[in-house]
């Protein structure tokens, strides 16, 4: 899912062994401090990025760390939890509602059993609550479902949806007991991938409280319409969708749409009884539309450990500068140092804070809008993307804007820390397209462009031959693009200004910059832009981060770069890439799995489906030294306030 960098940027990779080594290298020798219960932990939200969606089934527009990992997941625990307090990107059985699933029948059947957890209202969390999610997800991602509201997409959508993947690769699912269910798959799948990227999408929801079509109507079993499934024609292996997904006002789709509309009514969060039924360690106490969040412990939380703090507060900020002022004033328990203020680190440490960079498992990029009718054909040309990437001076951005905290991004799989076995030799070796302005100009000239450094380059040799501009590019077309980016983060602003300057000065690529709050940028970029429903309002959009691999914890990229994926912002669509991604899903063993992953990432390291930007820590965390439980931070940007206590 997407998020905004706080201070600078984010992302770090690591599989369990590497992360463990890294943690060990940090010298985390700990002694058990004397702790007290109670106290309020105040956590700083990202600049101009307050949570704005509470329903866990978030569409692409709301599919962000801010809304999910740092907000709704504290109240609604996924069926399978990934990540732990040792910063390892692994399945965490202890924090999951479900036991580890088992696969049978040549990996075509999945058996799921639940622990005996309860909702905050005392009702048991049962297989019915899992099927409630599956029914709504099936309806919301059904390509044949009726459009809801003004959206051209069916239902409210799901940010992790990939056509042909979950739940369309599920032939049927049914309850086999109060705490168990089974799924039949349409093919044999790699169990690692299916657990880490497919089952990981499930969040049990309180069917007995939420299965309604309006606030005034009774709770029923409206979602059941979506349980019967039919195969989509002309799909191989056959893909399955609900035989009756419902409509915007009936059936499973109607329920999903009702909950979506309630989630969009921000002003009612703290009074709406829907959101008071939770499974997680915290329950919402107060919320303002400005983004102030106060959660208190869910006294009926079934997991362990139970929260000991009395409240967890999230504070909104319009900029990283205002956040840092609050940090300096000592009003934050957990905040971050913007990179431009890194010189203040020692001073803050003297005033009772501990410095702890927060690394995560993802990569930083921003997308091209390939569907844009005018500029899309230019960005579809590989030579253009190679030229543009050659103008991104990642090393300089790291040195001058990220205070040295970061590494260049070479492809879609994280390479940091060094030695991540998921990163291919090509990615680990270094950048395929390092900063090289001369090469950028040469590439453009070699493909029919008259380069006008300091001005705007134009296509003077239209056509589809190898030395011509390419398909869909007319004579006189200009290299002029609109680049929207998130406001509030100084490092991001500096990067965009530097890129704008270099691109125009060297290659005559004109970038017209504009800024907007984080939510507005992702709302623009993830607005269902496809070649059949193209978006013309933007050419490139940078929300300041990229992607943290959650809930696709195995970094195969299907949720962001496969054709038609909900979070494939600019609709990058190349059959070879789709085939490579598919191969990672069906690899029969670990060796084949790694080989398929390398093939996938090497291809995209060269194809440049997005603009790769430097990756660094999610944030340079500063936390009050008397706060326990924050030695390790979530590698998927998730929070663990149930572990916090004061000493």
């Amino acid at each position: 899912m997407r998020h905004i960098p706080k201070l600078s940027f984010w992302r770090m990779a690591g599989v369990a062994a590497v992360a463990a080594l890294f943690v060990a290298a940090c010298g985390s020798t700990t002694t058990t401090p004397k702790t007290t219960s109670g106290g309020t932990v105040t956590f700083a939200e990202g600049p101009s990025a307050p949570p704005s969606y509470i329903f866990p089934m978030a569409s692409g527009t709301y599919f962000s760390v801010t809304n999910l990992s740092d907000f709704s997941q504290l109240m609604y625990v996924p069926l399978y939890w990934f990540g732990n307090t040792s910063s390892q990107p692994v399945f965490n059985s202890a924090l999951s509602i479900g036991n580890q699933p088992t696969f049978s029948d040549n990996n075509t059947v999945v058996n799921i059993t639940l622990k005996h957890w309860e909702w905050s209202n005392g009702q048991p969390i049962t297989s019915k609550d899992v099927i409630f999610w599956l029914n709504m997800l099936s309806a919301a991602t059904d390509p044949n479902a009726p459009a809801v509201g003004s959206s051209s997409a069916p239902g409210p959508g799901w940010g992790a949806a990939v056509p042909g993947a979950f739940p369309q690769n599920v032939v049927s699912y049914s309850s086999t007991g109060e705490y168990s269910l089974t799924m039949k798959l349409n093919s044999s799948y790699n169990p690692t991938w299916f657990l880490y990227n497919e089952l990981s999408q499930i969040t049990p929801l309180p069917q007995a409280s939420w299965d309604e079509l309006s606030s005034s109507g009774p709770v029923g079993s409206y979602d059941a319409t979506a349980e019967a499934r039919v195969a989509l024609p002309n799909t191989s292996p056959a893909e399955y969708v609900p035989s009756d997904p419902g409509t915007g006002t009936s059936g499973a789709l109607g329920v999903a749409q009702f909950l979506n509309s309630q989630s969009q009514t921000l002003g009612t969060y703290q009074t709406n009884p829907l959101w008071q039924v939770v499974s997680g360690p915290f329950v919402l106490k107060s919320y303002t539309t400005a983004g102030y969040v106060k959660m208190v412990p869910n006294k009926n939380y079934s997991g362990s450990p139970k929260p000991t703090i009395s409240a967890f507060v999230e504070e909104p900020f319009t900029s990283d500068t205002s956040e840092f002022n609050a940090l300096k004033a000592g009003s934050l328990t957990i905040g971050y140092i913007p990179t431009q203020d890194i010189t203040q680190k020692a001073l803050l440490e003297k005033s009772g804070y501990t410095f702890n960079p927060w690394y995560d498992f993802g990569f930083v990029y921003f997308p091209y809008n390939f569907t844009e009718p005018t500029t899309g054909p230019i960005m579809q040309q590989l030579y253009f993307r190679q030229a543009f990437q050659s103008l991104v001076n990642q090393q300089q951005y790291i040195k001058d804007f990220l205070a040295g905290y970061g590494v260049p991004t070479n492809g879609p799989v994280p390479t940091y820390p060094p030695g991540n076995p998921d990163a291919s030799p090509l990615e680990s070796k270094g950048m395929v397209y390092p900063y090289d302005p001369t090469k950028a100009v040469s590439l453009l000239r070699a493909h029919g462009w008259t380069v006008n450094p300091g001005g705007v380059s134009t296509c003077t040799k239209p056509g589809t031959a190898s030395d011509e501009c390419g398909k869909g590019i007319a004579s006189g077309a200009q290299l002029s693009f609109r680049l929207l980016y998130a406001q509030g983060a100084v490092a991001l602003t500096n990067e965009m200004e530097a890129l704008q300057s270099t691109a125009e000065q060297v290659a005559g690529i004109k970038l017209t910059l504009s800024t907007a709050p984080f939510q507005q940028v992702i709302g623009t970029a993830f607005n269902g832009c496809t070649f059949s429903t193209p978006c013309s309002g933007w050419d490139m959009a940078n929300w300041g981060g990229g992607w943290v691999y959650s809930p696709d914890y195995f970094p195969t990229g299907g949720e962001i770069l496969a054709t038609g994926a909900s979070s494939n912002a600019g609709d990058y669509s190349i059959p070879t890439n789709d085939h490579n991604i598919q191969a990672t899903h069906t690899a029969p063993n670990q060796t084949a799995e790694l080989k398929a992953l390398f093939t996938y990432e090497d291809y995209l390291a060269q194809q440049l489906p997005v603009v790769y930007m430097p990756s660094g820590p999610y944030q340079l965390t500063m936390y009050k030294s008397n706060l326990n439980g924050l030695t390790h931070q979530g590698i998927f940007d998730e929070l663990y306030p149930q572990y916090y206590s004061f000493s």
Partner: protein
Amino acid sequence: MSAADPTANLPVAGALPEGGEGYRSGSMWRLILSVFFENRLAIVGLGIILFMLLFSFVGPFIYRTQQVFNNPNIAHLAPSLAHPLGTDQVGYDNLGRLMLGGQSSLEVGFAAAIIAVLVGVIWGAVSGLAGGIIDTVMMRIVDALLAIPFLVALILLGAIFTTSTLELIVVIGLVAWLVPARLVRGETLSLRVREYVQAVRVMGGSTRRVLFRHIIPNTVGVIVVNATFQVADAIIAVATLSFLGIGVPPPATNWGGELSNGLSYIYAGYWWLIYPAGLAIVLTVVAFNFVGDALRDALEVRLQRR
């Protein structure tokens, strides 16, 4: 003393004329200028405005810097002979940046003030002259818009329009016309019952003639004074918008944007990114206020010494 003596109207030392102190008579504009230049702060203000205009618009021809393409390799350099006010976060020369920012700030300031005054004067004069239901409706519209906080309206409009210098001018102008409209409407109410206005009407003069030949010219005092304050207000407005991130996109800049950028580095000690831009805004706004005050003194009949 003969009747032809040009000093005949001057008071004789030790003897005051009937009615009090008297002064040499002259044209209205000479009198206005005389009163204006008696105000030392006005002269200081005028000097500062002239300096800022020269600094912003002539300065770049003398002190040539690269203000289109940045150079992060020389970011955050402290003031030196090569860069008298240092460099900023992406390597722009800060003195040159200040000149460029001044152009934008002053352009927006003047142009937005002109729009505000033009719209406000016509709206207020028409409302005051028409009277009745038209006046009521037009003034309630003004009242309703005035009830919206200035900053909120600016932010709202700034968020709707994409920001360029032209759009900033329009946005600020659209918000700022309300005050001149009220002032001119008040003046018009008192002018429309004057004898010369009545005379024009009796002689068959059109409403348009009354408005443009007799009402508006006689509100010029109010208009000119208000226009100077409008310029100052517009400069602050553009600085505020830019400070809040709704300014002109790079590589364009203005003083508010410069100040906002500089404040991000306040803890890094880069004072040269903060003080010059802040000082430029304060000095220019204060200067326009000095000039406005002096113009009011000079144009306001009750404050004139005659």
